[in-house]
């Protein structure tokens, strides 16, 4: 008997960019289909902004800068002080919903199906990441617009805006690769919605809402060395048009690149872990 020759498969060559485009389009379409989730993403930082400015701001404003009188002046100063942290929290809000989306994919049959197709593995999770970065930019612009409507006046030129956008893309990549990994590693959708809580809380233990030198030493040491502080300080400098210390900016960029790589490796490992 002549040896049977293997049937030649349809020539589906790996095409990661094409698959990434397909999967990104899918994620963006899902966001359009689920506008209430997008509304919640924006609502969380906006509610915090209103709470902090209109409830605490009158008093806190006098605490973040010297010679500010409590009341209206305090509120205006405090609004300017917390906008960077609120923008960062907008990004963490997107990250949290991304983790939920990824966990829904992983625990349902969709990822199982995709893993039986020739699709490039990086595209399956990468589509969520690219879409989340787009969503981060849109949501942050919206929140910034609301802050401006409340009287906030950033001092930023076109170049600064470009730098700000670039920095947010990098920061978004770091946050969303991490949250994609959390979502992919989660055993259930519920646990996926809880793990990124850490990301939501961290900005409070940093320079986002009060200067770190007002904190007791152990908290201050943590606050000074956690990634959100240099990120918030970089955004603060870019928005205020004041020079960002080179050390701070590079620390922020370093954290973002490092966390993005860690998130990517972790996500890849979680995606590859077999499940029946």
């Amino acid at each position, binding site marked *: *008997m*002549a*040896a*049977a*020759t*293997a*049937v030649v*498969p*349809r*020539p*589906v*060559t*790996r*095409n990661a960019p*094409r*698959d990434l485009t*397909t999967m990104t389009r*899918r994620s963006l*379409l*899902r966001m359009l*289909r*689920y506008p209430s989730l997008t509304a919640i993403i924006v609502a969380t930082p906006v509610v915090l902004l209103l709470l902090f400015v209109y409830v605490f701001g009158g008093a806190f404003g006098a605490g973040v800068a010297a010679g500010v009188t409590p009341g209206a002046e305090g509120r205006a100063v405090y609004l300017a002080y917390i906008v960077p942290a609120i923008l960062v929290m907008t990004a963490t809000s997107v990250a949290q919903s991304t983790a939920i989306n990824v966990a829904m994919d992983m625990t*349902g*049959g*969709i990822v*199982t*199906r*995709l*893993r*039986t*197709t*020739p*699709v490039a593995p990086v595209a399956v999770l990468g589509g969520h990441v690219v879409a989340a970065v787009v969503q981060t930019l849109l949501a942050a612009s919206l929140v910034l617009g609301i802050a401006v409507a409340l009287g906030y006046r950033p001092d930023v030129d076109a170049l600064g805006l470009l730098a700000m956008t670039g920095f947010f893309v990098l920061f978004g990549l770091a946050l969303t690769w991490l949250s994609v990994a959390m979502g992919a590693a989660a055993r259930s959708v519920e646990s996926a919605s809880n793990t990124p809580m850490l990301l939501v809380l961290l900005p409070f233990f940093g320079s986002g809402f009060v200067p770190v030198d007002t904190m007791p030493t152990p908290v201050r040491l943590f606050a000074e060395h956690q990634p959100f502080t240099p990120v918030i300080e970089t955004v603060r400098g870019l928005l205020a048009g004041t020079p960002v210390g080179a050390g701070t900016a590079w620390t922020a960029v370093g954290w973002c690149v490092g966390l993005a790589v860690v998130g990517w490796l972790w996500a890849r490992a979680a995606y590859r872990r*077999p*499940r*029946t």
Partner: protein
Amino acid sequence: MPVPPLPPAIEVVGLHKRFGDQTVLDGLDLVVPAGTVTALLGPNGAGKTTTVSILATLLAADGGTARVLGHDVATDPQAVRGLIGVTGQLSAVDPLLTVTENLRLMADLFHLPRAEGRRRVAELVERFGLGEVARRRGQLLSGGTTRKLDLAMTLVAGPRVVFLDEPTTGLDPRARHDLWDQVRVLVADGVSVLLTTQYLDEADRLADAVGVLHGGRLVAHDTPAGLKAAHAAGSLDDVFLALTAPVPSADAA
């Protein structure tokens, strides 16, 4: 020049799989000739889904070999993925995308040219009677329609070997008959099918061969009629009960 014979659709030799200290597959041998339907029966936990997962490149075996149309699933998974379609036990429909968008997604992921993708999607919508719900979201479909869409998504790229893991569980009789008809259409097109099922009449009606998986290997492998004759049984139910008396290794933790 003589046409070389087709390799078997599926050729499994001495397959072993353990989860921790639980042996699920213990030297499984199974051949599915090209163009035929084989039904895999077995009690819950027998390892049917595990077998399908290994063949579908989702899970690595601990020993033995598995080939799909001549391609080893362990050493050339990418070639296997280009030839198979899998409808798993869980629904793999995106709940937020419409029926058409779900199908288009598969066409795009298999890199079908745009026009061909459109044609293929339209063809499947027509063939599965999904026209009325084409613009409805996955989450709003009934169980039977979701299952149809699931199978249609599996077929977008024209797979040569199709795995169906309990394709009709939870469907009403009409939906089950519709699905059986779709499988018959596939076979008429020369596609090979491995299906797992808990419904023995399903195996009886659809399969050219039936394998009964128990204790990690096939305890019987024959045509439905052959099995019934060999066990002097009136139905595959009786054969199943006779062959799959509980063994201690099956689900003992």
